[in-house]
């Protein structure tokens, strides 16, 4: 703690304990606790209580108040807990008898204030923070604290109940790990006193027959096995395993939903997953007895495990895939069905009845699909899923949903009636479909898959969200299709599909709904990014109306759409004007026109998104060396930075700086000064001629004026970036030794101007504006002056300063204490007013 803070603290404590003062902003109290937490964490030996007697006085005076406000009392409880985390402070507070008055029977626990949830929450948090040493443990156990915490597990406030459960786990772990010399074993269950107390309570409530007590204990065990992977947890488990197992069959206690979570956490614990037999038998039994909805998370979790017996894995797979299997069966004739699952291991009756009920069908499918999506998103999956059948099942679901398939079988017709127009299922199924594109599926299905996707893209019933997801799935499968057609030369099929896709895209680009136009443009951009090297893709795209429509959308009334159109058009340019083997395009793709349009958006669009999109497109072009020869580029960059330097959006200005950064390094390395990551051409020529030449280019392009002005930008990220670029330039132009800062200022060629520049920057670059014209002598286009500026300004120091104070929200504890003090004596509360 700094001296300033320790001087301020007594007054802050006095103010907080004064009931006549208006209570402080909640956030101030929270931040104060954060500060104390940080102090004890970074030096556990520090005795905050002894060094700052005002803290003890504060606690004592809050306790002495006849009616403290719940928020101050809660704060005091939490503060005391944080302080008592160190054993020294704990002893000190004990001697003063403060801890008993805060956390013991005579404290708030038995007062009317306990009714307030924030006080109970403060109590639990306080105890939790304190539990770091044995004296605290003894204090808690001997004072009946464990009983209080067990009661709080059933607290009406969710926050308190959950915190109590976590506290019990913490206390149990601390007790076992700090109070035993040898780890407990199955034969010798010599638990330390505190742990024994907790374990006994757990066992009792598991046997109590009370649904709420059982639920609380199962939650506690779930937390415990999830967070603690010590071997003693197995010993604990052996004592309660039988009881827990019995809940699987007992419907009266309704513990089943909790069991899946408990078993899942156990399966992830190395303590249990390595065991032979009994644990896995329990998992198998759970997979058999719990309902498909309850057991879904367990099945999906088991499938992600590498260490898991094969039969359990198969069982889990069966559970998870059963609804998908059922869908396939419902849709096909009995004889043609080549199912997902071996019927001998699965009993489809339950799943069938769930799927044929309106209330459960969609939720079971959505849950299954969500689990599948998660599994498919894993790069390494411990099991092989039957991808082809899955794909078929997904297609069936999607066809049920849009009414394209109504099978004759009773089950099939029931399910298809339930699923028709069900957006929830559509969304989930499309997500899985997209994820499945990365897996090896049977290729013969691809044709019919695109039929399904195109039906969705064309359907007027598809909601914007469904359309967006269809676009995502379509783009992924198109990439897959392209790879396929490369390997098996099925060009015709690909061509046909692409043609259909662009036809429907044309329609969607004209949708009255901006969400749809935007998703269509995003889809187009993704396609170009992935497939721009494919000849047939380029052909199909350019022979469609899509490029023209995309350009039209540059004038869309919705700014999001304009921004997406800018991005799409920017990418389109790679296959129109910038392509080396650019096809004959006629007049419709006029490069100058497009650039001019984008420039216009950059300088006149009233909204940030389109302007940001333009600057990012320009960056992309420049990086890929698309902007032409150097002179061309110079003009281009110069024009762009003159446009963006007055932009109101700092992200646009930052984009301009990024452009300058690329331009500078390209210029420098094209002329052979140093290595450049973006250089389109590398040259080995090194000479001072080039040195001057590149400096001149940068000056002509007005790069320096932009950079120096940006140093004084009112938004910090801009200043930081500008400083970084200037540092980079300096190392480019002064490659070996940076010049000394003492090098002439007053008598240098730029004379007064340079001195002024330095002074301005030194006085606090961010406080003042840079001059708007060269009235006082700085000529940003003069290479010599700029060379000198680079050499003389202490950019490192500036860099450090800009980084040191990265925002204007003062986070120092000193400022916090000052702010709390400043509100003291404010009679009138400022009324709430949000934006």
């Amino acid at each position, binding site marked *: 703690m700094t001296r300033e803070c320790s001087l301020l603290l007594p007054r802050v404590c006095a103010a907080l304990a004064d009931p006549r003062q208006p*209570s*402080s*902003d*909640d*956030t*101030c*109290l*929270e*931040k104060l606790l954060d500060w104390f937490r940080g102090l004890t964490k970074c030096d556990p030996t520090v005795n905050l209580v002894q060094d700052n007697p005002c803290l003890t006085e504060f606690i004592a005076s809050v306790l002495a108040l006849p009616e403290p406000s*719940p928020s101050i009392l809660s704060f005091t409880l939490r503060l005391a807990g944080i302080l008592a985390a160190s054993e020294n402070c704990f002893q000190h507070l004990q001697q003063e008898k403060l801890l008993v008055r805060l956390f013991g029977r005579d404290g708030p626990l038995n007062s009317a204030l306990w009714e*307030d*949830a*924030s006080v109970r929450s403060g109590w639990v948090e306080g105890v939790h923070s304190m539990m770091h040493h044995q004296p605290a443990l003894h204090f808690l156990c001997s004072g009946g604290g464990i009983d209080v915490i067990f009661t709080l597990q059933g607290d009406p406030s*969710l*926050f308190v109940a*959950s915190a109590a459960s976590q506290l019990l786990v913490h206390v149990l772990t601390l007790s076992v790990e700090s109070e035993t010399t040898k780890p407990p074993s199955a034969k010798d269950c010599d638990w330390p006193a505190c742990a024994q107390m907790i374990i006994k309570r757990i066992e009792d409530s598991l046997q109590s027959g009370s649904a709420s007590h059982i639920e609380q204990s199962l*939650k506690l065990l779930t937390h415990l096995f999830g967070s603690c992977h010590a071997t003693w947890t197995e010993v604990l488990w052996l004592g309660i395993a039988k009881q827990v197992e019995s809940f699987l069959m007992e419907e009266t206690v309704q513990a089943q939903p909790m069991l899946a*979570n408990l078993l899942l956490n156990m399966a992830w614990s190395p303590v249990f997953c390595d065991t032979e037999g009994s644990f896995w038998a329990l998992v198998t039994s759970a997979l058999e007895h719990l309902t498909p909805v*309850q057991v879904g*998370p367990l099945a999906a979790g088991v499938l992600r495990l590498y260490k898991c017996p094969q039969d359990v894995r198969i069982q889990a797979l069966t559970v998870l895939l059963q609804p998908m299997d059922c869908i396939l069966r419902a849709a096909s004739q009995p004889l043609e069905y080549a199912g997902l699952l071996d019927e001998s291991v699965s009993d489809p009756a339950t799943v069938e009845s769930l799927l044929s009920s309106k209330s459960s069908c969609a*939720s079971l499918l*959505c*849950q299954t699909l*969500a689990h599948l999506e998660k599994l498919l998103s894993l790069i390494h999956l411990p099991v092989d899923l039957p991808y082809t059948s899955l794909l078929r099942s997904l297609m069936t679901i999607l066809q049920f949903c849009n009414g394209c398939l109504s099978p004759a079988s009773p089950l099939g017709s029931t399910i298809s009636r339930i699923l028709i127009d069900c957006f*929830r299922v559509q969304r989930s199924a499309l997500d899985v479909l997209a994820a499945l594109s990365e897996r090896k599926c049977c290729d013969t299905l691809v044709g019919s898959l695109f039929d399904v996707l195109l039906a969705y893209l064309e359907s007027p019933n598809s909601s914007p969200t469904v359309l967006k997801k269809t676009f995502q799935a379509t783009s992924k499968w198109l990439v897959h299709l392209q790879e396929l057609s490369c390997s098996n030369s099925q060009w015709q099929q690909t061509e046909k599909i692409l043609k259909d896709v662009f036809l429907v895209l044309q329609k969607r680009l004209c949708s009255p709904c901006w969400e749809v136009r935007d998703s269509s443009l995003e889809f187009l951009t993704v396609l170009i990014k992935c497939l721009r090297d494919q000849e047939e893709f380029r052909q199909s795209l350019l022979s469609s109306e899509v490029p023209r429509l995309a350009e039209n959308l540059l004038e869309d009334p919705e*700014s*999001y759409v304009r921004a997406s159109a800018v991005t799409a058009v920017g990418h389109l340019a790679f296959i129109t004007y910038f392509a080396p083997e650019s096809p004959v395009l006629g007049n419709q793709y006029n490069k100058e026109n497009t650039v001019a349009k984008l420039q216009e958006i950059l300088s006149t669009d*009233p*909204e*940030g*998104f389109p302007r*940001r999109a333009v600057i990012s497109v320009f960056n992309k072009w420049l990086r890929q060396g698309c902007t032409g020869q150097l002179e061309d580029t110079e003009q281009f960059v110069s024009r762009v930075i003159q446009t963006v330097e007055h932009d109101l*959006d*700092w*992200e646009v200005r930052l984009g301009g700086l990024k452009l300058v950064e690329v331009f500078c390094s390209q210029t420098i390395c094209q002329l052979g000064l140093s290595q450049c990551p973006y250089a389109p051409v590398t040259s080995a020529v090194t000479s001072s001629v080039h040195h001057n030449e590149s400096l001149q280019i940068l000056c002509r392009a007005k790069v320096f004026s932009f950079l120096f002005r940006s140093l004084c930008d*009112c938004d*910090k*990220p801009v200043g930081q970036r500008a400083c970084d670029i200037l540092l980079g330039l300096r190392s480019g132009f002064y490659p070996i030794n940076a010049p000394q800062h003492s090098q002439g200022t007053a008598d240098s060629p730029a004379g007064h101007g340079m001195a002024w520049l330095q002074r301005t920057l030194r006085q*606090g670059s*961010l*406080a003042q504006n840079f001059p*708007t014209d060269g009235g006082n002598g700085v000529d940003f286009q003069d290479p010599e002056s700029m060379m000198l500026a680079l050499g003389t300004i202490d950019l490192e120091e500036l860099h450090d300063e800009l980084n*040191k104070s*990265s*925002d*204007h*929200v*003062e*986070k120092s504890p000193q*400022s916090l204490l*000052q*702010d709390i003090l400043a*509100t003291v004596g404010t009679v009138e*509360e*400022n*009324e*709430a*007013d*949000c*934006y």
Partner: protein
Amino acid sequence: FPEMSYLSFFCLGPGAGQDVGRSCILVSIAGKNVMLDCGMHMGYNDDRRFPDFSYITQNGRLTDFLDCVIISHFHLDHCGALPYFSEMVGYDGPIYMTHPTKAICPILLEDYRKITVDKKGETNFFTSQMIKDCMKKVVAVHLHQTVQVDEELEIKAYYAGHVLGAAMFQIKVGCESVVYTGDYNMTPDRHLGAAWIDKCRPDLLITESTYATTIRDSKRCRERDFLKKVHETVERGGKVLIPVFALGRAQELCILLETFWERMNLKAPIYFSTGLTEKANHYYKLFITWTNQKIRKTFVQRNMFEFKHIKAFDRAFADNPGPMVVFATPGMLHAGQSLQIFRKWAGNEKNMVIMPGYCVQGTVGHKILSGQRKLEMEGRQILEVKMQVEYMSFSAHADAKGIMQLIRQAEPRNVLLVHGEAKKMEFLKQKIEQEFHVSCYMPANGETTTIFTNPSIPVDISLGLLKRETAIGLLPDAKKPKLMHGTLMMKDNSFRLVSPEQALKELGLAEHQLRFTCRVHIQDPRKEHETVLRVYNHLKGVLKDYSVQHLPDGSITVESILIQATAHSEDQGTKVLLVSWTYQDEELGSYLTSLLKKGLPQGTA
């Protein structure tokens, strides 16, 4: 009883009356789960700024658990966590808000993102793309339009005043309903009208109670005060800085100044520094129907949002001599242009800064509002603040009177107060319970309140049954309830009362007849058939209006009741009468048995 549970969570307690908490409420109604608002807390820059969504459900995905999310209005404490919730936590279901909210929400989110990511090391915050993706999932609704979320769940928006596009929402499943007010205002202000709802008699009204006990001085007074201060400053040649966020308060104050400037014929320039002003004004024009009558009326002659006196600001203007008024972003004076102008002007006592909104601890705005006059900037320079600092609240919430008025309008069966200070809410709660005789709740943050409802469930009755039942007895009388008998069928989510025969037919069931039997012992030494005859004669004499028959097989029937006699196996002098009857003749059956139990009268031949 059907149960409607309400879970209030994460509505942070308003410390010192500063209610900037994260509004986020979960309502479970007839098996449907709806999340109301998804706000953020601007006072934190870590996890605490968003609600902890893991409390919503411990089992399963949020998308599966929640049926929809409803956003009441565009303030960040009501919508600020939405992109985080939908794009980072992974909620993928439907989101509803009004059209203006959908249009304006992303501007505020974007504005806040920009000043947040400006800070170094800012992680776990949503990006521009995420805001867009989130807004694309939003379904916009019209006022008074009944939106069917799914087959059972429907929602409807009502005008709430407060800010442009703010709405109260009615959520209805079957005959159970909840109304959530969000923030609302029962008195019209300069550009918005008053909140209104019809007499929808919801089971529960969830109302904000920010100004639970305050009867606020009229907004007009505060506006006059504001204009006076600005005017005085400008008159003495000073400059006025008003830090604002892009949208909301800024537009309101612009209208105020514009009208005043026009009336007083003032010449000092007014500037608006944010680049978003055009878009903001565009939306106010677009959603003119959401503003109040006065604005709508004058719209034909002059659009209130086309300002004559307010011009775009260029940063070079800040150095111009002479008076001026500048609206600059951001509103807490912690970055960007507003801070830059503040630094230039702070040293002159002629100038003034007016803070119209909440400032987070640590910002320059918070410091000057708490009275600090020497500010350390970036840890080295001391900035002395000589300019005047004023705080002015223009927020439009319902006060105690307004809340009571709304309850009177909607006639809820239960009221639940959120967004307020416990002590003040307690007072209001008592008042509501006394005046309206309804239960009023005020759960703490994170607490669940469960309310039992007593819904009346509509039942269709088949025409055949209705005819048959009305044919029995008197003509129907509207004033007297009539008891009807039939079979209640629950099928395809509807209830129907039909005749038993029709039910059997529709359900394809076979009929089983249930008969009640009873044995009655009679002392009679005669032969069995003689006993039967005596019983027959006795019954015939007593039950004159019923058809009593003596069947050839020796048994007796009275309507559906069957009586047979046998001799007792051990005692020939005792005869056992076996009486059996159907459910329909329950009354007659029990009468008969009690009659027989009394024995047969002497002399019955």
